[in-house]
């Protein structure tokens, strides 16, 4: 240890510019690898998570980008007519969220309300850490059973009630906590699979026909945008599209989740592939630059290495010192990436951003740690290449008395 300390303090750090060069190169390599790895992992998670909706006969509504949007034409009666048609002819999964309410909680978060019907609830299969499944046949004017995120579970344990003024019904309502969602439960976007909404500070409200009949138009209209029609055919959804068009003046497409995946493949997967290729190329370039930096270091420190070898340093010890030094640089960089990531995660808490606040050690979640593991693996690979190149260079010169003349 004292030999390693001597080398770091008296030799390596005396050529600070070379150490800084290596730190910067490693930092670039680590950050690029981390970002790419996390994007890929998040996309993979999105694929896995949205599989619940990727079923034969399930079509998801999607507002055509070229659809006219005349808000004056959209009325409550028109929306009601669409829902009447839906209720008479289809089973459907209704889900919409992003309705913000203020209820007391220790973290001071703005709480996001999500609304879903039984069709969606059965498809999505929420995992609970406490409580029991939702009952959709509740008495509308009494307590409404809800699921809440982990962040609210201490303040509102299972069985407790939450009273609030709710904009969708436009009157005070009482919610009863039926269950608590698992920590970091999330929902992925059907189209951008690496985009997620976390439920840690959400309340999921079950909606039934009666609820929808009394709900404001912003809920019913928003719900239509992502409604999934179950056990149907393309032709039947075309009829529904016509009904929507007649009543609301909007053009809707109905796509299966496989169509959404195909859309993702066409527009996002290409970008993801490019990220992978660019990351790989950049890693090769950075590794080459690191080797060059290491060779310059060897050149500039060769006299010091030689003197140490003459007075008792062994080749194997020198190898250990190089690996140890690279390990420290790598650790410092990993720590830097870790701090940046933790700060980003923690930033969601500071901004009271309920849909992105996550739980975990320093706010980091599974895919962050997995991405760190990949960064550590790439650092090990890079370390082996750089250190072995240095040792090869030293043997090639080689160390001898001639170096000191």
């Amino acid at each position, binding site marked *: 240890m004292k030999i390693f300390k001597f080398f770091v303090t008296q030799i390596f750090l005396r050529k600070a510019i070379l150490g800084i060069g290596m730190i910067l190169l490693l930092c670039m390599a680590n950050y690029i690898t981390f970002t790419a790895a996390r994007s890929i992992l998040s996309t993979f998670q999105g694929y896995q998570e949205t599989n619940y909706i990727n079923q034969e006969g399930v079509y998801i509504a999607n507002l055509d980008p070229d659809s006219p949007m005349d808000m004056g034409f959209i009325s409550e009666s028109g929306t009601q007519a669409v829902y009447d048609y839906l209720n008479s002819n289809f089973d459907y999964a209704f889900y919409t969220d992003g309705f913000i309410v203020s209820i007391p909680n220790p973290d001071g978060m703005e709480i996001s309300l999500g609304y879903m019907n039984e069709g969606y609830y059965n498809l999505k299969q929420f995992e609970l850490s406490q409580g029991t499944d939702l009952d959709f046949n509740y008495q509308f004017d009494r307590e409404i059973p809800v699921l809440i995120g982990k962040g609210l579970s201490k303040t509102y344990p299972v069985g407790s009630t939450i009273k609030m003024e709710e904009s969708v019904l436009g009157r005070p309502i009482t919610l009863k906590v039926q269950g608590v969602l698992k920590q970091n439960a999330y929902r992925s976007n059907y189209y951008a699979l690496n985009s997620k909404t976390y439920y840690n500070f959400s309340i999921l409200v079950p909606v039934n026909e009666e609820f929808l009949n009394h709900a404001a138009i912003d809920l019913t209209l928003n719900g239509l945008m992502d409604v999934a029609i179950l056990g149907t055919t393309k032709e039947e959804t075309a009829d529904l599209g016509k009904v929507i068009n007649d009543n609301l003046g909007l053009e809707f497409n109905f796509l299966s989740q496989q169509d959404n995946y195909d859309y993702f493949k066409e527009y996002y997967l290409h970008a993801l592939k490019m990220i992978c290729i660019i990351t790989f190329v950049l890693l090769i370039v950075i590794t080459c630059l690191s080797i060059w930096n290491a060779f310059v270091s060897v050149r500039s420190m060769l006299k010091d290495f030689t003197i140490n070898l003459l*007075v008792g340093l062994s080749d194997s010890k020198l190898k250990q010192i190089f690996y140890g030094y690279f390990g420290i640089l790598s650790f410092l960089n990993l720590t830097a990436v870790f701090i940046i990531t933790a700060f980003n995660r923690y930033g969601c808490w500071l901004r009271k951003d309920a849909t992105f606040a996550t739980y975990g050690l320093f706010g980091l979640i599974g895919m962050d740690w997995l991405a760190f593991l990949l960064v550590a693996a790439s650092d090990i690979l890079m370390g082996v290449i750089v250190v072995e190149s240095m040792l090869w260079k030293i043997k090639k010169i080689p160390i001898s008395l001639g170096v000191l003349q």
Partner: protein
Amino acid sequence: MTRIIDLRVKEKIYKSKKTRLSILNDFSLQVAAGEKIAIVGESGAGKSSLLNIIGLIDRNYHGEYALLGSLTNDLHASKLAQWRNQKIGFVLQESALINSLTIEDNIKLPFLYAEKKTFQPEDFESVISAIGLKPILKKKPLECSGGEKARAVFARGIIMKPQIILADEPTASLDMENRERIVSLLFKMNKEFNTTVITVTHDLEIANRHDRVIQLERSK
């Protein structure tokens, strides 16, 4: 007298992309304990290569080398490093100091690699006093004169009380006074501690003050 070095080199080859140079062909050297040997010869004859082999730095040659009665060819690299630390002292040109360290730390460098706690302050003090380095111990090499640096390199070479001193052109860039001082110190070590001294030099006057002079010739 005890034979301390028994070296038989068939050849030492230096290869580059286009050339292949063979030196020290069928060279043998036997050295007794306490002997003073000078190695002379023109540049490229293999003087430094020979010191690299004797000093256990280079094992990439054809031949056999017994040091202090043990065959070194099969010894583990860490054992060789240990022997370089304890049994061999290198006295090199005055530039062979680490510039970021003080003269004191340069001299104490071998202690860093010593297995046991071999550093004895009184031994260090006596060496420093004998060589006259006390006033410059806290200085960095770049703040010292050539003679001071040469003496510091010498002090580092003998601080572990080695059985063999390998001196590679130790006086090459020194003035007459400092040159004489270093040679005297070398011979003093030889006389007082029976240390074997092998000196590579271009200076025939210094060479002739050794017990034996070995002339190396360049390969044809």
